């Protein structure tokens, strides 16, 4: 145990706790984003840079932004609308909590048992981990995490993309409230004009890097989405949102994944397998399509419906 | 051909019923033709099986059903006895119902469920094992419910709810008995002499368990049999249309319960084994109490159908009493009453329907002089009533005679007293009606002819009447109502007069009885 870790852990807990207890959800979501970024650092310290990238881009970034957007919308409507906000309770007594002591005790007991359990577990080296190392050359993918995601456990990834798509379809079924017109902000526009092309480059790099180093479609997609959203907030003339979130674009990644999984799988003798020698281009094709679809999906999760 | 007889017997009414559901309300001729055709076909099938059984052919059909339990249909002598009764009385009731419901709404629905009801009854008769019996027993509950609530008034719905509560409750108890028994001794098929006759002593469960199972069986079946104190549903169900009452009391529901008790005592436990268990005496006591109780309650009813209903409570328990008397004579008395009571009671209900339909008469106090206005119906009623009392030569006499013999044979002399007392009560509640009907002067106008609605509980009858051309102002009931009534009365007489002829109910019952006792 060293001091850095200890400090990180304490900060993490502090941020999580204050996010949950924060006076308003808006503040809570800002704290949550900070929590996510800190967590990304932890992932790096634990030797998982891929997770760190995903956490920073998606866990902290997208989730935090989603919560913040909704919270600010609630807040503005409440103040502007006829419904007055209830009396604010002063810090530190949190608003909107209802103590139910039985539940609190139950949760405490569960956590205590959990802690005892994880301390008691003697981690095994694990058949799966060894198998990954052993079979990595055979998979023809250099980066082990990518090999797991797109070869050994590609089926998980495929279903996970399906989950994402289901969320989009369901989200589009409940149309969003009309967006408020955004005031044109010259500073933001200037920043965006520089950042957006840069972000696109970063996305492409992450995609390319995924096969040999940390990175991959998810992270690239998240960065892509960030760029698009930034462009949108800055009201840049290149606003691809309406086209980007059309169903065919959203469905593209999963469709290609399934298609390759079946056709290449038929040639390789097992669904979601790749014929030897074709792994690199096929994986890259899947990742590219996934990046576009994931980026579009994340954008769609924020706003517009199908017919926006 | 022989393989087809059993399924055809069931299918004749089942298919007819399902087709009738989908017939438009207007197609009266087609519906009636289907009904009658199916009834005749079923009767023909039963006749063929009777003949075949005499020739030594056995009819049996096995289908896979539950794991380890087959669906078994079998035409054994006991089943044939009941199925013959059902088929015959169904034909009569069908004719009667066509006449009775003429012009009333929802007839396709009525006749659909009517046919299902008969299918269930025939299924009960032909069941070869407990599971099959239970299947049809519950089907009967379900198929009867829509008939009881046919008129769709709140009062009727309440009666229906009561009916369901009782019968479904009984069904659940029966199911418990069936499962418990079969977990102990394996799948049970009905066989003459009972299951335990052929079972190893080591495989026989302990006595307390068997007594418990027997009690559950009787409690479960006792609901439909209307054994006191489980009879509460029966008088209430009188709100149903007359053909339904006739069917409920004479052939279907009540009889299904009684038949079930017969099956359980003779062909599951075996009369000898049941005797050795010591469960027959309590059964006889319960039956005796019900007999006296039902008769006493009948005395005080003014509503004709309610009086008949309590009479049924009493009369059906004669069957149970006969079953509980250890000895061939008691058995003969009980089994033959199964047939005789059916024929006589259906006659009485037809007559009650005729009175209500023709003159709007529902209460006994309204029946003064009705014999002059409707002599044929009243004659039929008299035959049925005298039979119930046990006056020779009507069929009821034969039953009571054998029951009396059985009481002496089994050494339970108090049963004889019960029989005599009950007959006195029978006379006390039937003879005044006959006196009123034949010897009192008729009123100036009959309840319904006066243009006013009938006095009570018959709003629907009024509707029916209103839909028609108006009842005949003179003369007896309409021919379609009168014909089955007279046929049933004739049968009741015939069964008594020709009791000694081969293939009469008595003869057939003797044949059955011979198989149930150890040589």
């Amino acid at each position, binding site marked *: 145990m060293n001091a850095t870790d200890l400090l990180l852990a304490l900060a993490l807990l502090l941020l999580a706790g204050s996010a949950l207890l924060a006076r308003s959800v808006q503040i809570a979501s800002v704290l949550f984003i900070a929590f996510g970024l800190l967590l990304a650092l932890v992932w790096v310290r634990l030797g998982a840079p891929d997770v760190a990238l995903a956490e920073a881009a998606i866990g902290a970034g997208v989730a935090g932004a989603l919560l913040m957007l909704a919270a600010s919308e609630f807040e503005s409507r409440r103040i502007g609308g006829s419904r007055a906000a209830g009396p604010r309770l002063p810090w530190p007594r949190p608003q909107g909590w209802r103590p139910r002591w039985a539940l609190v005790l139950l949760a405490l007991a569960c956590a205590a048992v959990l802690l005892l359990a994880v301390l008691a577990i003697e981690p095994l080296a*694990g058949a799966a981990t060894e198998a990954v190392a052993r*079979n990595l050359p055979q998979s023809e993918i250099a980066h082990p995490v990518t090999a797991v995601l797109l070869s050994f*456990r590609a089926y998980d990834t495929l279903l996970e993309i399906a989950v994402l798509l289901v969320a989009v379809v369901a989200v589009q079924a409940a149309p969003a409230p009309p967006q408020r017109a955004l005031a044109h902000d010259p500073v933001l526009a200037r920043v965006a004009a520089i950042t957006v092309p840069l972000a696109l480059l970063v996305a492409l790099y992450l995609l390319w890097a995924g096969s040999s180093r940390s990175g991959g479609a998810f992270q690239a997609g998240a960065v892509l989405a960030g760029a698009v959203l930034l462009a949108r907030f800055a009201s840049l003339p290149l606003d691809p949102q309406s086209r980007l979130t059309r169903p065919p674009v959203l469905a593209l990644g999963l469709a290609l994944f399934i298609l390759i999984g079946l056709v290449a799988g038929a040639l390789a*003798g097992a669904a979601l397998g790749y014929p030897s020698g074709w792994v690199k281009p096929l994986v890259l094709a899947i990742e590219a399509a996934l990046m576009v679809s994931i980026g579009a999906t994340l954008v769609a999760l924020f706003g517009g419906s199908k017919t926006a | 051909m022989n393989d087809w007889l059993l399924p055809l017997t069931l299918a004749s009414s089942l298919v007819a019923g399902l087709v009738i559901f989908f017939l438009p309300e207007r197609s009266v001729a087609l519906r009636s033709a289907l009904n009658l055709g199916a009834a005749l076909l079923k009767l023909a099938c039963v006749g063929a099986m009777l003949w075949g059984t005499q020739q030594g052919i056995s009819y049996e059909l096995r289908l*896979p059903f539950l794991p380890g339990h087959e669906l078994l249909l079998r035409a054994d002598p006991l089943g044939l006895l009941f199925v013959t009764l059902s088929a015959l009385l169904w034909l009569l009731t069908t004719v009667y119902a066509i006449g009775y419901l003429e012009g009333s709404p929802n007839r396709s629905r009525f006749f659909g469920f009517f046919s299902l009801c008969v299918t269930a009854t025939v299924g009960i008769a032909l069941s070869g094992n407990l599971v099959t019996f239970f299947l049809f027993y519950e089907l009967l509950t379900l198929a009867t419910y829509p008939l009881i609530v046919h008129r769709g008034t709140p009062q009727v719905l309440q009666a229906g709810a009561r009916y369901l509560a009782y019968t479904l409750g009984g069904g659940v108890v029966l199911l418990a008995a069936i499962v418990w028994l079969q977990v102990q001794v394996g799948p049970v098929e009905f066989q003459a002499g009972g299951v335990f006759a052929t079972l190893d002593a080591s495989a026989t469960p302990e006595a307390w368990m068997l007594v418990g199972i027997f009690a559950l069986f009787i409690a479960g079946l006792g609901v439909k049999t209307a054994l006191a104190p489980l009879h509460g549903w029966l008088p209430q169900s009188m709100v149903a249309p007359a053909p339904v009452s006739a069917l409920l009391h004479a052939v279907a529901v009540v009889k299904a319960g009684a038949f079930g008790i017969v099956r359980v005592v003779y062909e599951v436990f075996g009369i000898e084994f049941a005797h050795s268990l010591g469960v027959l005496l309590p059964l006889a006591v319960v039956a005796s109490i019900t007999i006296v109780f039902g008769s006493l309650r009948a005395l005080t009813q003014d509503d004709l159908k309610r009086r008949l209903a309590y009479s049924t409570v009493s009369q059906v328990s004669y069957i149970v009493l006969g079953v509980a008397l250890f000895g061939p004579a008691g058995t003969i008395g009980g089994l033959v009453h199964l047939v005789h009571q059916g024929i006589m009671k259906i006659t009485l209900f037809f007559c009650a329907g005729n009175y209500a339909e023709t003159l709007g008469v529902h209460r006994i106090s309204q029946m003064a002089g009705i014999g002059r206005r409707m002599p044929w119906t009243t004659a039929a009623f008299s035959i049925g009533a005298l039979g119930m009392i046990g006056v020779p030569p009507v069929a009821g006499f034969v039953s009571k005679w054998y029951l009396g013999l059985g009481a002496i044979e089994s050494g339970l002399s108090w049963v004889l007293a019960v029989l005599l007392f009950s007959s006195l009560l029978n006379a006390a509640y039937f003879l005044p009606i006959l006196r009123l009907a034949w010897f009192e002067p008729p009123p100036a106008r009959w309840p319904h002819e006066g243009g006013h609605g009938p006095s009570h509980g018959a709003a629907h009858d009024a509707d029916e009447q209103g839909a028609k051309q108006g009842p005949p102002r003179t003369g007896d009931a309409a021919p379609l109502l009168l014909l089955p009534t007279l046929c049933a009365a004739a049968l009741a007489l015939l069964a008594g007069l020709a009791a000694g002829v081969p293939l009469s109910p008595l003869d057939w019952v003797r044949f059955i009885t011979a198989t149930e006792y150890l040589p």
Partner: protein
Amino acid sequence: MTEAMTEALLLPLLVLWPLAIGLGLYALPERASAALQVLGTLVLAGLIATVFATMLASPEPLRAALGGWAAPLGIELVADRLAQAMLLLTLLVYAAVLLYAQAYFAHGSEAAQRFWPLAWMLWAGLNAGYLSADLFNLYVALELVGLAAVGLTALTGQSTALAAALRYLLAALLASNLFLLAVVLLYAATGSLALDSIGAHLAAVGTTPWYAKLALALVLVSLALKTALAPLHFWLPAAHGNAVTPVSALLSALVLKVSLLIFLRLWLEFAPALDLAALGLLLALLGLLASVWGSVLALTQRKIKMLIAYSSVAQVGYLFLPFAWLLPGGLGAALALEATVLHLLAHALAKAAMFLAAGVLVLSAGRDDLVSLRGAVAREPLAFAALTLAGVSLIGLPPSLGFAAKWQMMQAALLADQWPWLLWLLGGTLLTAAYVFRVLRLAFLPTPEAFEARAPLPQRLSLCALALALLAALGGFGAAALSDWLAAETLLWPGSGA
């Protein structure tokens, strides 16, 4: 394609094909919708038929290692007879619901546009849940099912439906996290995610570490929450009762069942390693609570779909009863397993039929309280017939599948010398009958005049309900064949038959 290749693709296609159809329905123009779905259903039926044909000879399960990587490195799909039964059930229910929905949704409505892709992706998720033999993959499949189900619940866009969907989502998310926690513990302890190797590992250790029990407890709580076992049923009635009718049918018939099936699988896998007798008893007692509580609440409902939804709470209780006897070495174990499967099938078919039929009555009356039942016999005789037949199975009267299930349960209870359960089963029958007939009796009252002006509904709606109801009500005749085919002993642990 060679035979080997067919086999390698067969099981994955059961998941990928409905997923692809769902994608097509989402991305392609709407005019292709009907053709796509007919094609999709037929091909899927063909695939399932192939699975049945391949496995007809022996109950030995089919296996497919995805990507050619065998477990524990890769993920394996396993189709045993349990999975097959579920695949077939899902096909049947879906066929009826999709046909029904075609007529139910007015053409081009926004709700319908989203219904089709979500329903098909849900189908993919269900099949994935039936087939997966990998703990983490089960988690992903459950998420696919859960999110699709939530999306479908919210389809009407009304405030009550949204609240129900949110409550459902939050409950499902809590359940998912508990499941995930268990996955983490088991993965850390055994180094594997494949079900059979986890089970084998735990059994080989000898004395099972207590944290394995904790993990199992977490999984069970999670799945009990998803299956809505009382007292964790709080989310179910509003979600099932407020969704559009075809969705209610899918949710109650299938979505509840996939979590139960996974529960059953894990139970069978871990029972030899852990002593589950006390837990089984606890589950059965909770089931008792659920069946009584659900029935009583069903008796007090005013809306017909809420009544049916509460009936699901009660019926789920019966699904958990057989776990009391589903123990290694238990006398009634095989019977108990058969009973669970039979009851699962019976409830799925009957409940789907009930919802579909109730939907018809609500449409034809223009209101959704019990008054909509009045005059149903005359107004919508086929829908009423469906409601009745489904009710027969729910009550457990012969010859329904529900009866067969109850029969096996009673035998299992008596074999295990636990006759008090009998009282519950029989009393429960009466409670069920009470709320079923509370609905049915109204149908015999005359039709209120306000209903009569409405245009007649397409017969197809009622026929779809009737088809499922008939399967449930007459299914008892197939119970013997079904139990022979299921070969419950082969699914249990060696040396513990009935």
